[in-house]
């Protein structure tokens, strides 16, 4: 793990940051028993019929009440006062839109039918399930998490009913917590820098090397491998010619997500869009064996030093969840820490470009010689109010936005717009078709 810097790393496993709950030990819960709606209806018919019969002396009304009276007579007096409940989740870590289920084990219910009603918390959607048949101890209640975050599933109301559904006993049970990672957008192509560090990877570098990409043909010099001799070229030129290949290198990529500004509209939240884009980029570069680092910016920086592999992806995903609840107002941030930014790294910035301080930070990064590519995730604009001044304010806002983008381009920082709906490949196409030249 990296050495925690002044802002503190956004790594998983920090103190007081437990993972999701897989399940809880069984606990005995007292039941409160009541009449069901069916029993109340039968009781109404029975009491009304018998009452009318007694008051008016008309026995046929007592007869009308007789079936209800006899159905109520099947009332079962032996009922459990408490049940043992243990709740767990079939999957406690998931991606937005994936399904999971609360696996509830009920003991001591006897022959009673068990039904579990999920009271979902925010961003949890209960899905239709089936009540457990009488005597079955395990109940599964499916649900879906609609928005990323670390949150409790909600609570479950466990209802026990007797055979004829005349009485029902119920109790409430708190459910475990779930970690939901942002759903990555689609990104298959990658932005590759012109200067790559001398580390073996999958990107074709300009320098000759031992890669698989054909570079050219040159004259043989002692020490060249015999297997690289190009025999057709040798025959044509009359001297030994060898094939040359280009080196394959990896690069360092740092993904910076600006979560300082939130804006919700019909198209969604800019923070959600930024995080989904960042997740897609992290996945794409890690798949190409690049080292990927992650920085969240919310008036101060929290970072993960670049790393490799699938484990790094989950570290990044955990870091995304950690920033969800950690609001700080430390405005002393002016330069991103050196430990988070390896020299020559490509910096991908997912931002709505609303914060002037971030723009200054990007300017600073550019001046330090980093290749920065901004992905603008602001999809809409403030609603236009009525009146002259409202229109004027909107015009000023638009001009301010244009000025920010213009100043970034003047600094040599390209800005690509991404709406969060289409593939990131489309927005990044001008930069993925050829290598991105790093100029100082």
């Amino acid at each position: 793990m990296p050495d925690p810097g002044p802002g503190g790393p956004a790594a998983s496993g920090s103190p007081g940051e437990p993972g999701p709950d897989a399940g809880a030990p069984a606990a005995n819960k007292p039941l409160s028993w009541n009449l069901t709606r069916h029993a109340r209806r039968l009781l109404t018919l029975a009491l009304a019929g018998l009452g009318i019969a007694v008051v008016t002396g008309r026995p046929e009304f007592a007869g009308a009440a007789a079936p209800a009276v006899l159905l109520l007579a099947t009332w079962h007096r032996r009922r459990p006062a408490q049940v043992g409940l243990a709740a767990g989740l079939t999957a406690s870590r998931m991606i937005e839109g994936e399904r999971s289920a609360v696996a509830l084990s009920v003991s001591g219910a006897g022959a009673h039918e068990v039904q579990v009603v999920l009271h979902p918390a925010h961003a949890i959607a209960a899905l239709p399930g089936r009540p457990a048949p009488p005597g079955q101890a395990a109940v599964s209640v499916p649900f879906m998490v609609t928005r990323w975050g670390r949150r409790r599933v909600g609570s479950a109301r466990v209802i026990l009913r007797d055979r004829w559904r005349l009485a029902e006993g119920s109790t409430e049970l708190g459910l475990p917590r779930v970690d939901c990672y942002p759903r990555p957008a689609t990104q298959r192509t990658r932005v590759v820098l012109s200067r790559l560090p001398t580390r073996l990877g999958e990107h074709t570098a300009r320098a000759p090397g031992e890669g698989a990409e054909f570079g050219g043909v040159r004259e043989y010099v002692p020490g060249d491998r015999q297997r690289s001799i190009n025999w057709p070229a040798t025959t044509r030129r009359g001297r030994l010619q060898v094939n040359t290949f280009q080196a394959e290198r990896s690069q360092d990529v740092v993904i910076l997500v600006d979560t300082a500004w939130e804006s919700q509209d019909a198209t969604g939240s800019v923070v959600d869009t930024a995080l989904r884009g960042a997740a897609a980029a992290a996945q794409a570069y890690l798949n190409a064996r690049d080292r990927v680092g992650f920085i969240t910016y919310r008036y101060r920086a929290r970072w993960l030093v670049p790393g490799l592999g699938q484990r790094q992806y989950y570290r990044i995903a955990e870091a995304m969840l950690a920033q969800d609840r950690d609001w700080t107002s430390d405005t002393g941030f002016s330069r991103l820490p050196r430990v988070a930014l390896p020299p020559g790294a490509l910096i991908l910035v997912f931002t709505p470009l609303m914060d002037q301080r971030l723009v200054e930070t990007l300017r600073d990064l550019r001046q330090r010689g980093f290749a920065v590519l901004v992905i603008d995730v602001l999809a809409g604009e403030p609603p236009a109010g009525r009146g002259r001044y409202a229109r004027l304010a909107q015009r000023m806002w638009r001009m301010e936005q244009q000025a920010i983008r213009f100043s970034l381009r003047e600094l040599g920082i390209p800005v690509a717009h991404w709406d969060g709906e289409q593939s990131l490949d489309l927005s990044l196409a001008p930069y993925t078709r050829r290598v991105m030249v790093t100029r100082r």
Partner: protein
Amino acid sequence: MSGRVWWRHSLIRLAAAAGLLGAGCVAWAAAPVSAGGPVAPLLTALSAACVAGGIGQLAADRVPPPGPGSYRGMPGRLAGWALLRLRQLPWAEGTTLGALALELLHPARPWHTAVLGAALTGYLLATHLAESGTARGAATAVLRGQAAVLVAGLGLLVLAAGSAALPSAGTGAAGAWLRVAAAVAAVLAGGLALPV
């Protein structure tokens, strides 16, 4: 699944049956309206509203409650309030009481009341089966399990109606046999009434 099989096991079928039985009970108890006095039309309208409310309650039970956290506008909150009331109010109890009150407004007619009692029992059972969301074939299983109790109840219903009609039937041998049968039925009912 073919349309016919789907309809046979559909909850809409049970809800429709409950609604029709409820409406039938109210119509049966209200007829003839002229004999029920001035209160009968109002009571009929209220009972019919309760039948409609009962069907609405069955439908509202299928609507998932909105999750917390999201702000809903005025129409959304009004719809939520209406759904909550639709779920909470005792519509079927209202229908039952309305039908019995309508029947009471009319002069004594024992066999008419007996049919109403049977229909009301059917209405309550259909409502119960529809709101339970019972799986395919489970409705028949529930009814089969309670068949003995239901038959005994209907037997008592017939005997009660018969005993109510006795004065007009005279005090002959038939009347005596009916009284004996009523006593036997009462004993059987007592046995059945013990908790099972």
